């Protein structure tokens, strides 16, 4: 019973926070529920990157490619093939997983910098192609994507959509934590620390990397689909390099080695971006809000230099240290 409580406690806290968000975001003038939806969607995509780059040490600067595949799949399947939105999300995720399996079968022939460049090139290539092809609507994209519906219930409005996104986020967090805490997850962390030692201990590097690549891609795809059905519009910007970088920033700022890094990172980075958009124009009349990118870059450098395990990672580290020092005396006595 006690074990169950400690096991479920983090989820209880997280659910509490998720439920608190609407209460806060609808009252504080700074935030809107649209912000919350966006944070949730990007947290889902970031979570995949945390598993891939954080735990397994396999960096990707092309994660937006899979987000884009999800978004476009939803768009094409619902507007051109008449599929219901939920089907679009699921089929999109499956397609994306297959694509990732294919790409993952050979992209891990390279490592480190080469992997970073290869994922980058993959993302850019896909972005460029999506802008040209007819099926993706060329440069103008695809409009009139139907809103998500669960049976007869169409999920309209940012508040309702937020609850949906929050539920999905909770599910993927549970999935990710299960994975991380399993034997498979342990091997992932091991290969992130030392590939040669992991391989010599019997870990099939190619398989493990491919699997986590697929998981990350599917998370990104679901996020992309959720985005497409929310804004009911998709164009090549969903595959933009800037989104790939933004996901990397969120994962790093939140914490690369904890699943909580994803929601924390998404919240912090989007809050920062929101703040920058409000504040920067006040500094000077000719500075527009889009210059938030400067803030991103500086925040990223500061976190990497001074808080290398990210905000969530740092907080967890503090909690752990307190738990470690506090009950020491009684346990030693017993």
């Amino acid at each position: 019973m006690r074990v169950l409580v400690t096991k479920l406690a983090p989820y209880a806290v997280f659910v509490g926070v998720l439920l608190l968000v609407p209460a806060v975001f609808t009252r504080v003038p700074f935030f809107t529920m649209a912000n919350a939806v966006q944070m949730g969607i990007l947290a889902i995509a970031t979570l995949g990157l945390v598993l891939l780059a954080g735990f397994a040490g396999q960096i990707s600067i092309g994660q937006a490619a899979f987000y884009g595949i999800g978004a476009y799949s939803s768009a094409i399947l619902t507007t051109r093939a008449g599929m219901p939105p939920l089907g679009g999300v699921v089929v999109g995720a499956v397609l994306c997983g297959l694509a990732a399996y294919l790409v993952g079968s050979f992209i891990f022939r390279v490592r480190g910098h080469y992997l970073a460049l290869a994922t980058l090139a993959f993302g850019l290539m896909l972005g460029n192609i999506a802008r040209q092809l007819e099926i993706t609507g060329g440069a103008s994209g695809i409009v009139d994507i139907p809103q998500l519906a669960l049976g007869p219930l169409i999920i309209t409005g940012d508040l309702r959509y937020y609850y949906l996104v929050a539920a999905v986020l909770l599910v993927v967090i549970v999935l990710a934590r299960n994975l991380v805490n399993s034997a498979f997850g342990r091997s992932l962390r091991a290969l992130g620390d030392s590939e040669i030692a992991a391989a010599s201990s019997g870990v099939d590097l190619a398989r493990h990397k491919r699997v986590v690549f697929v998981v990350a891609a599917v998370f990104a795809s679901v996020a992309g689909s959720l985005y497409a059905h929310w804004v009911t519009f998709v164009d090549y910007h969903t595959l933009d390099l800037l989104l790939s970088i933004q996901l990397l920033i969120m994962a790093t700022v939140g914490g690369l080695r904890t699943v909580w890094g994803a929601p924390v990172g998404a919240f912090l980075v989007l809050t920062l971006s929101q703040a920058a958009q409000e504040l920067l124009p006040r500094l000077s009349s000719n500075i527009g809000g889009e210059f938030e990118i400067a803030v991103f870059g500086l925040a990223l450098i500061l976190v990497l230099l001074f808080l290398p395990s990210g905000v969530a990672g740092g907080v967890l580290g503090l909690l752990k240290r307190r738990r470690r020092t506090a009950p020491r005396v009684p346990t030693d006595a017993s």
Partner: protein
Amino acid sequence: MSDNLQFIVTGLATGSVYALVGLGIVLVHQVTGIINFAQGEFVMVGALTFALLNEKGLGLVPAALSALAITVVVGVLVERLAIAPARKSTIERLIILTIGASIAIQGITLVVIGTSPHFASAFTAGAPYRIGGVVILRQYLWVFAVTALAVVTLWYFLTRTLTGKAMRAAAMNRDAARLVAVSPSRMSLLAFVLAALLGAIGGIVLAPLQAPSAGIGIALGLKGFTAAVLGGLNSPTGAVAGGLLIGVIESVAAGYLPSGYKDAIAFGILFLVLLIRPNGLLRRASSVRV
């Protein structure tokens, strides 16, 4: 036929700039082991400063010198503030750091200068030359000459001067270099200074051809990576050859395909080369398995 020749000449001109970007990436990678994702931003800073000062009426030479100086300052700041303190980090973190540096430079430039492009005049005025049916802008000749000069000077520095040799020693074996009193930290700084100079030179010769704005760094940096990877990431000569090659391929492809595919082709080549011949087009693959 003359169409093709025209594409090649135009491609060689942009390719020269890619070559300079690639050269900066190779240099930093050899000496520090880091892929500098901010290299394209050095080109942007050089080009934009040059164009801005030139617009304000400054002459070519003072504008170019100021652009070089400012870019070097940016390079030094990047190295000292972001790279040097994190030298012991893992590769993923260093990659993310230089990406952070890259977007920070871009963002600060946006805040200081804004989004609009600026225009620099060609180094020498006058009608383009025509040979056969091929049009050769005067600025192209400047691009070729300056690039060649920069490459030769760099080669001379690396192979004929003591500091240059020390840098190559540091590139080959960082620990051994320390033993013979070559400070890796100073070499890293020097590599970033040289990379910034190369970037700025590329930016300055490019500015009259393509009015620079704060956003051009990313694309240029990506072409530079492609050049560097084509050449094997560790070969300065390879990077130059790779830059020229990618410039020509892009230009020819743009002549025959819808213009939007130009970039897709460049990145497709980057992707394929990385997966099929990660050691570059010229070298054999190594046999290390893990």
